[in-house]
């Protein structure tokens, strides 16, 4: 309550300053003044600050104030802002969240502007622009970037295990015996006595290096944890995507995959879930505790930035249906419905989605921009830094991606699936226990 009174005071102060502003400049169009912009990834801040500076130079009447907030606080602070009237004019939006925000009328539909300003939606990588059309058929954001999943591996550990980088490019996986993926993981696992995971006498309770790192249970999406495996079997999270209304965690095919995944920890090839609370998976990889980490393309900078460790990137393994699979997630910039500077906000969003800004982002080699041309430029920029990112880009090229599950109730689904998945991945419950969680999830849509 203290907080919201503070917010009221801030809002009141803002209202005062706003009215003072508009009083003086009411004769001009409203595309002037300072607009606020939020994002959560600190790695991307320098690129977007550059965009904001360029934008301000091209539009002297508008300045953009960027605020970066960590992911953990981002959404609750944003919600407080919606209620208290202090939300940013423009903010980085997530597929898992925007459905609820649109439904609660917090987002500004931008169809008119997109039409009027002739934004070429086909210039974006396939499907990215359409993700931001809500259930009501209105457009709530313009795509800014995309990400896929790949396997980061420690080159030194690979060569000492006698595994070639070409082998890593042709891994196969199936839920019965794990395919060559499990064989490689087992061989890369080393216990305290120097015995490998596939050698007799391997001590699974005293492991020095795990073949595969573990990020967590993966809650509802398993974005980096297990979806690159489960979705090669023909399984998908929901009945349709976007805007599915039935989740499929009760599918025996999915549960078989999850039992295999949890089994890795039991065999000693992957750390136990309980040991991963705290230090991040990337940092433990850098500390030499795991040989392969499945992670998203937004982590390229982090993995290749560690000193004294050579990192390679392989594509995710080919599944039983003969294809690879990677979750395809994309962010967009959305406008808050309560903005006082609609025109300036639209200008800024269109600039963020334009080649001018996305090329700047590409040149910094931190993420893949949404525009096809800018994506290619980013791949070149990564190459210039000595990083081969084909593992990520070929998913898009070969159309082996599937979309992040976009539904209503995503926060509640996560609330139910997080403990349920933790229980399975930690070996406390069999994957068949997910059937009950799935019933709870699907009850949300009735």
């Amino acid at each position, binding site marked *: 309550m203290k907080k919201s009174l503070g917010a009221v005071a801030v809002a009141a102060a803002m209202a005062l300053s706003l009215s003072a502003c508009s009083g003086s400049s009411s004769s001009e169009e409203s595309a002037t003044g300072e607009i606020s912009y939020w994002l959560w990834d600190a790695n991307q801040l320098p690129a977007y600050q550059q965009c904001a500076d360029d934008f301000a130079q091209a539009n002297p009447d508008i300045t953009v104030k960027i605020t970066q907030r960590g992911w953990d606080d981002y959404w*609750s602070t944003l*919600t407080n802002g919606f209620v208290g009237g202090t939300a940013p004019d423009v903010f980085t939006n997530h597929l898992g969240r925007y459905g609820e925000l649109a439904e609660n009328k917090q987002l500004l539909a931008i169809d008119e502007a997109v039409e009027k300003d002739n934004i070429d939606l086909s210039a974006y990588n396939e499907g990215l622009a359409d993700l931001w059309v809500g259930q009501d058929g209105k457009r709530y954001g313009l795509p800014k970037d995309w990400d896929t999943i790949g396997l980061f591996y420690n080159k030194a550990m690979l060569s000492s295990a006698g595994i070639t980088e070409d082998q890593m490019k042709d891994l196969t996986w199936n839920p019965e015996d794990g395919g060559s993926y499990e064989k490689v993981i087992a061989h890369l696992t080393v216990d305290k006595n120097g015995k490998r995971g596939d050698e007799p006498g391997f001590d699974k309770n005293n492991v020095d290096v795990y073949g595969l790192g573990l990020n967590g249970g993966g809650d509802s999406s398993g974005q980096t944890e297990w979806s690159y495996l489960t979705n090669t079997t023909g399984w998908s999270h929901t009945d349709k995507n976007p805007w599915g209304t039935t989740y499929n965690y009760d599918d025996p095919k999915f549960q078989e995959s999850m039992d295999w995944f949890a089994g890795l920890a039991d065999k000693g090839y992957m750390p136990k879930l309980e*040991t*991963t*609370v*705290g*230090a991040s998976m990337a940092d433990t990889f850098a500390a030499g505790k795991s040989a392969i980490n499945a992670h998203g393309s937004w982590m390229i900078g982090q993995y290749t930035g560690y000193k004294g460790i050579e990192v390679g990137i392989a594509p995710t393994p080919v599944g039983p249906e003969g294809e690879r699979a990677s979750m395809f997630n994309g962010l967009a910039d959305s406008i808050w419905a309560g903005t006082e500077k609609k025109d300036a906000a639209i200008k800024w969003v269109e600039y963020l989605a334009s080649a001018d800004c996305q090329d700047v982002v590409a040149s910094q080699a931190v993420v893949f921009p949404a525009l096809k041309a800018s994506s290619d430029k980013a791949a070149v920029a990564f190459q210039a830094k000595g990083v081969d990112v084909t593992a990520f880009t070929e998913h898009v090229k070969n159309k082996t991606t599937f979309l992040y599950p976009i539904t209503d109730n995503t926060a509640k689904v996560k609330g139910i699936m997080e403990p349920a998945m*933790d229980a399975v991945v930690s070996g*406390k419950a069999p994957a068949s226990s997910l059937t009950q969680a799935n019933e709870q999830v699907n009850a949300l849509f009735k």
Partner: protein
Amino acid sequence: MTTLAKHSRSASAASASPKPQGSHRRLGDLKIALLFIAPAMIGFVFFYVLPTVRGIYLSFTEYNILGDPEWVGMDNYVAIAADPLFWNSLAVTGQYVFLNILLQTALALGLALLMHNVAKSTIIRGTLLLPYLMSNVIAALLWFWMLDYQIGVVNQFIEWSGLPRVAFFGSEAWAIPTQALINTWRHMGYTALLIFAGLQAIPSHVYEVAKLDGASAFQTFRKITIPLLRPVLVLVLVVTVIGSFQVFDTVAVTTAGGPVNATRVIQYYIYQRAFTESDFGYGSAIAVILFLILALVAFIQMKFLKGNESDLD
């Protein structure tokens, strides 16, 4: 915790000040008294009474904060009664409160006796309060790093001494005891200070008489110190029990309810339902239940431990 201490202080101040000497005098006092009470009263009404009333109202609604609350009657309470996660959060919180209170009270009593009888230096007494001066979040994060399974310094020591590493925050068996120990460490200095104040209020002649009668140190402690300390101990217990039922920040910045549901304490569950899942009606209903539980616990403690009477009179 601080709230309750503040209230009991202002309540006793209010009841102590108007010693009536004449009716005109009393009326003059009342005006001044009201003036002095006003700042606290305004704060109390705006920051406690009104939000509480609104919270009770919201507990009968479905409310996602962005729309308008919609009246649903007892629906939230019916759903809570059938919610295994609610009962789990009660059990987990109970476990935390039990461990925290047991350790904290025992250690604080010990520290207070040491302060009273051995460590007379103000610096040493002041040092005991240091952990309490640290923000809860900072304390929790420091321990989170020190106790980390992979890279924590504590686990390095454990391994050097030949024992297996302990997943302090990651294992379901350890997660709650670890949280309880951290908060015991942070709060025991403050609790010790409260008890220490109580010890100083016990007149020294009582001890002199006991000594003359040949009572041993243990007998003195059991028959004199503890009974005479009772009102302070009751206050300490009421305040610390209420405080530990409301454990939140340590959990929020470390385990966030996990592993599985091992640290999904009641306050964290309220936060999750309300702020993460935008179900403010449901969250408010659990908060109302927690309020009732705490009121009952405090009442029972005051009633049966006779906290409002002293054996010194």
